[in-house]
């Protein structure tokens, strides 16, 4: 196992810059998830670590060794592709043993690691099959098996679960988590799904428009998003955002309600689960426009005149009628203040 260090990494195609100033250190055995919307550069960054894309500027080190000019085969990494990329003319066993075959390891020597990986992934009965005879989940397992067999310095995953249906995705997510606990390999994992990011990562790297927005543990990002982009991207349903005019003790919202905020704040974020329906009638008045009953929770999609749409997530069921007016109060300790540029305002208490 080895750590991965990126310093000042940039990537441009012709004159177009797609990645800029990427600094990141992935510790030995750490599971880091790169997350962001389509086109944010996360897959490009992963491919640069793999050696599939040349690095325009900056330095990449794996295990302390500079890797910028080293071809993929010399980096001692394994990658699981979104498309699985199994070799269709080879059996499962040969697919998994292929890296060792290329390294000229004798057949007898390959059998052991392949059998062990197959056992870990429950593929023992499928070793003689061809990829075309496997289901999506099984193919995904074979792709992971091929990565494990090599015992590389680091694992790279490029949206490995995107092609699976919802139920299988949850199952494979657990499998990846279990595998990581078992092997403890340094892993860089790319996804656009923030639930995958939150559940798998030791640390999450949120990216947007070719730049790192924030790096932190899942709870860091949830509790203290560094800017409005991270606030909106992490957490489901999305954080509510209200704008207001600064007054001495906070922000005055359009309806006259004042929510506490530090100086410099122009907007306040509040997660749906921290917005409550107030029984006593003091707070922000909003009309209920849609109700989603999820069983464990109820989502109230409301519209506060002048303030905008607000979503409140209430535990359990709630006795509210569509079209009625409710009074919403935020959990004051859970307000996220942002300045005019969208950066988090550090609260001094």
């Amino acid at each position: 196992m080895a750590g991965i260090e990126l310093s000042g990494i940039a990537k441009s195609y012709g004159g177009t810059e797609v990645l800029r100033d990427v600094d990141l250190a992935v510790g030995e055995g750490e599971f880091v998830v790169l997350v962001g919307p389509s086109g944010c550069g996360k897959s490009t960054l992963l491919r640069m670590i793999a050696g599939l894309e040349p690095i325009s500027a900056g330095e990449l080190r794996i295990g302390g060794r500079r890797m910028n000019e080293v071809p993929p085969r010399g980096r001692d990494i394994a990658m699981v592709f979104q498309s699985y990329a199994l070799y269709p003319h080879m059996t499962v066993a040969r697919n998994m043993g292929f890296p060792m075959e290329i390294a000229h390891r004798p057949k007898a020597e390959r059998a052991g690691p392949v059998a062990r990986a197959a056992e870990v992934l429950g593929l023992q009965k499928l070793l003689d099959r061809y990829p075309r005879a496997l289901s999506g989940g099984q193919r995904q397992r074979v792709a992971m098996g091929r990565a494990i067999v090599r015992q590389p310095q680091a694992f790279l995953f490029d949206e490995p679960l995107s092609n699976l249906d919802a139920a299988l995705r949850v199952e494979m997510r657990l499998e990846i988590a279990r595998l990581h606990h078992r092997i403890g390999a340094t892993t860089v994992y790319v996804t656009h799904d923030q639930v995958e990011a939150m559940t798998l990562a030791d640390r999450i790297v949120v990216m947007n428009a070719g730049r790192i927005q924030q790096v932190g543990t899942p709870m860091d990002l949830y509790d203290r998003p560094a800017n409005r982009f991270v606030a909106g991207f992490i957490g489901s349903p999305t954080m509510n955002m209200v704008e207001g005019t600064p007054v001495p003790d906070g922000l005055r919202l359009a309806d006259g309600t004042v929510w506490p905020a530090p100086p410099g704040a122009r907007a306040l974020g509040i997660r749906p689960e921290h917005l409550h329906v107030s029984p006593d009638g003091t707070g922000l008045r909003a009309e209920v426009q849609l109700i989603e009953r999820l069983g464990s929770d109820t989502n109230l999609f409301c519209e506060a005149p002048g303030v905008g749409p607000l979503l409140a997530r209430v535990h359990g069921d709630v006795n509210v009628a569509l079209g009625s007016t409710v009074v919403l109060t935020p959990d004051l300790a859970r307000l996220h203040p942002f300045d005019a540029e969208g950066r988090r305002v550090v609260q001094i208490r």
Partner: protein
Amino acid sequence: MAALGRPHPALVAGKYLALAAYVAFALFPLYWLVKIAVTPDRLVYSEGTRYWPSAATWDNFREVLGSDFLRFFGNSVIVSLSTAAITAVIAAGGGYAFSRFDFRGKRLVSALLLLTQMFPLLIIIAPIYRIVAALGLLNTLPSLIVTYTAFNIPFALFLMQSFFDGIPKDLEEAAMIDGCRRMQALRKVILPLTLPGLGATLGFVFTAAWSEILFALMLIRKEEHMTFPVGLLNFVSKFSVDWGQMMAAGVLALVPSCLFFAFIQRYLVQGLTSGAVKG
């Protein structure tokens, strides 16, 4: 649901009837070829429109096999196989480059290749003759191999490119991460998956070279280097056409084509790449 799953029997029957009609239409000339080949000379004109002659004979075949035809045949095999092999190698390399790499002038080369396909061959016969003559290749089999290769490469290259395009780039990248050099990835992963494409290309070029007559007629005058389409013209004399022997020669000429396709047909089977990427 049953109606969706199983179409009406009349529809099925109609479909097969239409297919049978098409097959009969397509194969009728072949049938006629065989029929005339086994018809004795004296009956060719008297029983011209009968579906099967009142007497059949192998005489035509015997005479053809005893003539120069075998040499023409051999020449054609050499020319066609060489053309197919050389073209397939060049087209595979070119097709791979066009499919995988971005290089300066790619669009221009591509446009030029396409341009060569736009002229009727008749226009360029004279210049080709001059070039071949200047190279001292007139009346040699290599003149045909070079010319056929040159004229078949553009189409074969585009054909191979489309096959390479159909193979996901991820496979090569996975192979390179797994420890392969690019050439190794090509040989171990991409080439086995391109066999159907190579088969199709070989088949196409072989057939084109096998039946070509225009250049063969212009560039080869000596009888010992003639290919069989030109040789067929030997059966046409000033006052008569020896239909029986000509057709027998035609039937024999089909044999290598059939053998060749029988040999490559297993590579032509599609679907080899299924299962490579997602479900």
